């Protein structure tokens, strides 16, 4: 347990991503129409959310933050249903086409705004998103905040302001220790997200009905609200751009298929072609 009088404050950064298992919104050329695609909470963020909620046992107040178009509020409802105390949606057209550096800047400014009058003790991110797959925003944000980072974090403990975390590395793990504040990016081998709480679900119903309660719990902010420099956001603040895309070639047609026959026959034919027992 912590021995602090004022509560801990944890922040979890989450993102709404296209649901790639759904065929909806996938154009014939392989691109995704984000407006039509089914949306979901980034799967890695489920683990980050669980990690942030775990800090409640140390008395933490948990704030969920997302950046995205207005429908991204859906994942904030989801976070609240799981037990998050407050939520912030950064939504601004000037954020369009932000790369990871610009995104980290905007989230940094949001975090500063969110932690006004509060401490900033722990920041949780998913290891990466499934639409960008970069794993860059977490470390970029930690650099902006000037705090240590523990990436690839699988589990952690908190005692007297000291974080002890297990970090997954190639062929093993590191046990790392640092004082808060710190930023952790959580792997998909971490503790799974618990079920939504009854209280959380009721809260969301109430929020969806009552605008006043909603505005108390979910803050929707623009770049102006958080004092972010628009020149450092969106396309202007992004040092990289996607210059071209090309479809990944299908190799197609070269696969020798065994089908429609008895299993023993197919296996025998395969072994005749590929002498696996010599491997």
């Amino acid at each position, binding site marked *: 347990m912590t021995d602090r009088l004022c509560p801990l404050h944890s922040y979890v950064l989450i993102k709404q991503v296209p649901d790639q298992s759904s065929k909806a919104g996938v154009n014939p050329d392989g691109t995704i129409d984000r407006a039509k695609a089914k949306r979901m909470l980034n799967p890695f963020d489920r683990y980050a959310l669980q990690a942030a909620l775990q800090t409640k046992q140390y008395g933490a107040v948990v704030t969920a933050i997302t950046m995205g178009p207005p429908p991204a509020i859906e994942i904030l409802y989801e976070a609240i249903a799981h037990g998050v105390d407050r939520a912030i949606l950064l939504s601004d057209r000037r954020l369009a086409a932000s790369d990871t550096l610009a995104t980290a800047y905007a989230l940094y400014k949001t975090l500063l705004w969110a932690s006004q009058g509060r401490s900033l003790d722990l920041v949780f991110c998913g290891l990466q998103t499934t639409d960008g797959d970069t794993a860059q925003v977490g*470390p970029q944000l930690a*650099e902006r905040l000037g705090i*240590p980072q523990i990436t690839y974090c699988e589990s952690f403990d908190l005692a007297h302001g000291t974080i002890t975390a297990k970090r997954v590395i*190639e*062929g093993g793990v590191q046990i790392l220790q640092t004082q808060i504040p710190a930023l952790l990016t959580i792997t998909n081998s971490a503790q799974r997200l618990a079920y939504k709480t009854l209280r959380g679900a009721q809260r969301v119903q109430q929020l969806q009905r009552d605008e006043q309660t909603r505005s108390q719990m979910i803050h929707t902010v623009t770049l102006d609200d958080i004092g972010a420099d628009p020149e450092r956001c969106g396309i202007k603040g992004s040092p*990289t751009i996607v210059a071209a895309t090309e*479809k990944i070639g299908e190799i197609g047609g070269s696969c020798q298929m065994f089908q429609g026959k008895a299993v023993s026959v197919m296996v025998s034919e395969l*072994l005749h072609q590929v002498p696996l027992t010599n491997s």
Partner: protein
Amino acid sequence: MKRRIWIFAEQVEGELQAIALELLGAGRMLADKLEAHLEAILVGHNISHLAQTLIHYSADCVYVADHPELAQYRTLPYRRVMVDLLSQLPEPPHTILFGSTTTGRDLAPRLAAYLETGLTADCTSLDIGPFEYSNSKDQSKSGVFHDCLYAIRPSFGESLKARILGPWKNPQMATVRPGVMQAVAPDYSRTGTVIPLAVNLQESDRQVQIQEIVRNVTSQVQLSKAEVIVSGGYGLGAPDGFQLIKDLAACFPNSAVGASRKAVDAGWISYAHQVGQTGKTVRPKIYIACGISGAIQHRVGMDKSNTIIAINKDSSAPIFRFAHYGIVGDLYQVIPELIQQMRYSLNSGNRQAA
């Protein structure tokens, strides 16, 4: 003055990682196109002897930061070495490459944010070329640029390869997937410059301490060095299915068990087994994919395998578009049959030999 291409030469416990030599291979091609120096940054403790190896593998110059506090990778001390070295240069390198390892993906974005420069993750191909840009929303960036780094990576859910550029500011940074680039053949007569660096860590760099490092060497060695990999996917339907996968893998002397992201996400097997864009890249002699649909995410991690055998009950699964052999059937019937027939042929083979 000659431009510079930098690569971060990763070592673990004094052993140079394959990615360091792969980055030199990619860096050599870029440096030749730019007529630039290829320089490696080597950070660790008691690692000076590795500098010559980097030179043999085509580095023109190696900067060595050798210090007890750098023995194991930690973000902030390694960041300090890079930041200090960069601040001593009259102008920044053209390009810096890191491996897409847990180290590279931890350090590179931290450094890119410090430098406020662009970074492209997990590249599978790199090149140098011109670029013309015009954007009505941002006139200041428009223009024709020469000698840009093309950082090429798969863009997921979109079955596309994206070419990412950031020619407005140097260094242009990228992380590169291990196992994709080819190292050059070593030239043991090659000479180069080795420059030792003064290491000046600040108190704030020591904020994170390593309590313990546990290396589970077996599992790592198995996936990257196995000649045969048997992988299970979501089509297994349940975690128990991996027992069958292990049984099949056990039929081969040098084998390992792999998994698709969906199977790992479902909690059926640990992340250490994951093959694909967010897992490991493997190129075994034989890759047997069981109940794996073959999404692009998985494909980029294994499609360089010599022989790919797919077992899937859905004949329209994408895996059959790039596998070499495919059995359409229920893996719970096919795998036991395969194990049985292999055992039979092994036994009869042994009898013949005897």
